[in-house]
């Protein structure tokens, strides 16, 4: 291990210690912050969101040994302050460029359909029907329909909303993986 990586490891350890005395919990908090930073950069229109989040974390790691002594408050907000600076710097270097989504080709649409069908089959029992019922394209009766569905399942409408969205997120992830594995 060279001096630079040893220093970085020491700084990283002190960052984790700052996040939580328990190393496992600190790791969870680290992931929590990283995921949110990526989302914030995405919301600011940055296609390189992941890169910027990692740059933010690296900069905090380098400062961590000193910051820990002086900073009072939620460490996540310190990350946010650094993220704002990184964002300004990146806007100066690489202004956002709007790239319109490409129109899906016929074979891509067919591939998506197949992947979606395959992923629906892999969902745990009950989840497939739930997600299809929740998202059925019926503009007029949507609110009443979802209310009825929640009643049938014996859960509150908001609990149904949360369940449907979580299944949707899993489904989207599955379809994405499927498309990457078998591009049209």
């Amino acid at each position, binding site marked *: 291990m060279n001096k630079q990586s040893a220093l970085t490891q020491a700084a990283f350890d002190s960052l984790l210690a700052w996040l939580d005395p328990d190393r496992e919990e600190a790791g969870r908090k680290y992931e929590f*912050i990283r995921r*949110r*930073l990526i*989302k*914030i950069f*995405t*919301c600011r*229109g*940055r*296609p390189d*969101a992941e890169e910027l989040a990692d740059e933010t974390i690296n900069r905090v790691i380098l400062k961590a040994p000193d910051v820990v002594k002086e900073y009072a408050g*939620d460490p*996540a*907000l310190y990350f*946010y302050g650094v993220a704002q600076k990184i964002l300004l710097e990146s806007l100066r270097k690489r*202004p*956002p*460029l*709007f790239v*319109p*989504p*490409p*129109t*899906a*080709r*016929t*074979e891509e*649409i*067919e591939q*998506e*359909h197949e992947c*979606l*069908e395959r992923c*629906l*089959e892999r969902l745990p*029992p*009950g989840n*497939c*029907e*739930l997600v*299809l*019922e929740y*998202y*059925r*394209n019926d*503009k007029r009766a949507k609110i009443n329909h979802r209310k009825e*569905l929640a009643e*049938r*399942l014996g859960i509150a409408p*908001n609990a149904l*909303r*949360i369940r449907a*969205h979580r299944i*949707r*997120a899993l*489904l*989207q992830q599955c*379809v*994405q993986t499927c498309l990457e594995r078998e591009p*049209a």
Partner: protein
Amino acid sequence: MNLSSEDQSNIKQYLLGTLTEDARQRVEERLLTEADFFEELLFSEDELVDQYLNEELSGEERGKFEQHFLATPERQQKLRFGKALNRYTSDLPEDAFKRGVETPPAGANWSDRLGAFSRRSQPWAWRAGVALALVVVIVGAWWLSRPRTGGTSPRTFATITLQLSSSNRAEGGQATKVTLPLNADALRISLTLPAHSTPAARYRVKMMKSDGETEPLAIAGQDAQSISIIIPAAQLARGRFALQLFLLGDDGAEQRINGNYFFTVE
């Protein structure tokens, strides 16, 4: 999770990029410190995509959605998935949902699960008839809705060249006509750029349909005088269309080129 309607409205505005700087900072701080607030943002992203696809956003919101929300590949994937899910649920027969959510046995495939909707306490013959009808409807809906062209990139093109019209409405003979069937794999549209255009300028194109729906179009080629876009024949529908051109600045700002390129599909 029980956020106020004000919080939900703030999240929606944040996603559309319409919050003031102070309000945006407050939202971002909460995203970093409140797990529920972050989860609500994830849900709102999906709901915004659905509202866009179901035409439930105002004109201004649609514009912000296209320019701000769709600015990253991650969001464009969300839109693509939302479209796929919409298509899938629209293709399912209404009957599929009437019996409600029933938990099928573990390991059942999707067709077994779909069958589970309609096989409670029915006489055998009636159930068989329903199942057969369901299969016919599903296969028929799939067959009718599946795109007609093969699984390869377009090889033959029908080409039209459009001039920029300063009018906001296609009147009289102004709009170029395209007749279906196209007798080609795709329609190539060449948009003549305004005089004095910079050769290295970058553009984006938006297609407006007669019902007000808009769709961004990818640019397939560009030279000093024109840019070209390609629309697969399977995606062409009858109607009147206006194409709008936007000049992209180096600072990321967009400038709409006045006027429209009109064409009709008959």
